[in-house]
C-alpha cells in the first residue's frame, strides 16, 4: 500500500516539477518578449 502511495506521490511530484519548470520559462519569455 505504501509503495502504491509512494508511486502516486512520485508521479505527481514529477508532473508538478516539470510544469513548474515550464512556467518559469514562460515567465522568462514574457519578460524577454515585452
Amino acid at each position: 500500500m505504501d509503495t502504491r502511495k509512494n508511486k502516486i506521490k512520485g508521479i505527481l511530484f514529477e508532473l508538478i516539477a516539470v510544469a513548474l519548470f515550464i512556467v518559469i520559462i514562460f515567465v522568462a519569455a514574457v519578460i524577454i518578449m515585452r
Partner: protein
Amino acid sequence: MRKFKSRSYSLEIVSYYTGYIVLIIASLMIIPIITSFLFREWTPMLDFMISDAISLIVGVILIMIGMRSKESMSNVQWKHGFAIAALSWIVLMVLCAIPYSLSGHTKSFLDSCFDVMSGFTTTGLALTQDLDHLSNGLNMWRHMLTFIGGQGMVVLALTFLATKIGGAYKMYVGEGKDIELVPNVKGTARHIWEISIVYLFIGTITLWIVGMMIGLNPVSAFLHALYIFESSWSTGGFAPNTQNIMYYHSVLYETVAMVIFILGSFNFGLHYAIWQGKRKEIVKNIETQSFFVTSFVACILALAGLAKLNVYPDAIAGFRRIVFNVLSAHTTTGFASIYARQFALEWGDFGILIMVLVMLIGGSACSTAGGFKGLRVGIVLKGLIMDVKKLLSSERSMKVYKYHHIKDRILDDSLIKSSAIIICCYIVTFTIGTMIGAFYGYPISASAFESASVAGNVGLTIGVTTPSMPAGMKIFYITSMYLGRLEFLSVFALIGYICGGVKKVCVNLIKH
C-alpha cells in the same frame, strides 16, 4: 581448430538470441493486424500478415542456426551481448520495413528502412509520403515502433526471456542502457516497462480529453492521443499527419505534449528513485542539473536572439514557437511547431546554432532520448573543474571528487575519458554528416542542422530530409541514427566481430 570452434559457437550464440528478439518483436505485428481488422482495412491487414509470416520464419531460422550448439544457451560474453544488440536492430529494421514497402507509401525499400530506423531510434524523421492518408494499421505500427524503440527492443525481449539468459546484462548494456533499477536485469526491464505503461495511461487519457475539447471526435481523439503520447514519451517526433503538432492548433495540446516529452527524456533510474520516495534526486542528480541549466539557458538565448529579429509578435507566440522547438530539440523529441523551412528563413544563424547545440547535447542517459546526454556533459564539466582544482591545490593533498547520479559516485579519470570519447564520437559523426550534406550541395547551416538532428536522434528537419534527397545521404543518415542510438560501442563491436570472422575465413582459405 579450437579457435575456429570458438568462433562457430560465437556465431551460434549471436544467431540464437537475435532470433529470439526478432520473434518477440515480430509477434507484436498482431496489434496492427487487429487495428486493420477493426477499421476494415483489408489490404493493410494482408500486408501485415505477410510481413509477420516472413519475420517469424526469419526468427525461427536464426534460432535453429543457434540451436546447433548447446553452448549457445549460456556462455554469453560481453562481445556477444554487444553484437546481439547491434545485429537485432539491423535485422529488425529490414523486417519491420516490409509493411511500409507493401503499403506503397514509400518511394523505395531504402525509404522504408529509413523510416523504421527513424522510429526505432526515436528520431522521428519521415520519408513516408502522404502521411495524412495512411491506414490506421500502418499508423499504429509507426508509433508502436517508436514506443518500443524508446524503451529498447532488447529490454522488451529481456522482460520475457531473462530467466533463460545467462548474459542478459551484457545485452542490456549493449543497447546503450547501463543503469540497474533493481539487482537483476529482468526486474530492471520490467520496471522500465512499468514506468512507461503507467505514463502511457496518464498521458493518453489527458491528450484524449484535450483532443475532444479542441473538436476531435472521440475515436479520432483517442487514436491521436495514443500516437502523440507514444511519440512524446519516446522522444520520437512522429505524428499521424504532415503538419506534425501544428495540426492541433492548441496551446494546451502542445503544453501537455511538452510535459510528456520532458518526462520521457529523464533517466529511468530517476523516475524509479522518485517513485521510491527519493524526491530530492530531481535537484541533486547531475543529469537533471545539467538538463535544467542547459535547456533554460538555451531557451533564454533563443528567445533573446529571435526577439531581436522581431519574428514573433508576443510572449505566447514566442513560447509556442521558440520554447516548444528548443525543448523539443533538447529532449531530442523532434515535434515541430513551425514548418521546416521557417527555421532556415526566419530563425537566422544564431537560432540555428542554438538548435544544433541543444540537439547534440540531448536528454538523459538510460532514457528514451538521444544526443551525447546530460550525464556526460556534467561528468566532463566536473572533470574540468576537478583538474583545475588539482592544479591550484597543494601537490601533497589527496582529494576524492564525487558526483551524484542516483547515488554518490567517485569521479575518476577513466570515467571522464570514456564520457569524452563518446562525446567525440558524436561530434565526429555530426561533422561527417555536415560534410556529406555540403558535398551534395546543401547550405552548410542546413547540413549542420540536419546532421545534428540525425546524430542526436532528434527528428527536426530544416527541409533537407525528403524522399528526393540522394541515396548516399539516406544511407549515411540511417547509419548515423543507428550509431547515435546504440552509442557507438555495440556497432563497433559488431563491425569488429564481422571483420574478425572475415579475416578467419580468409586465413583458412589461404592455408588450404
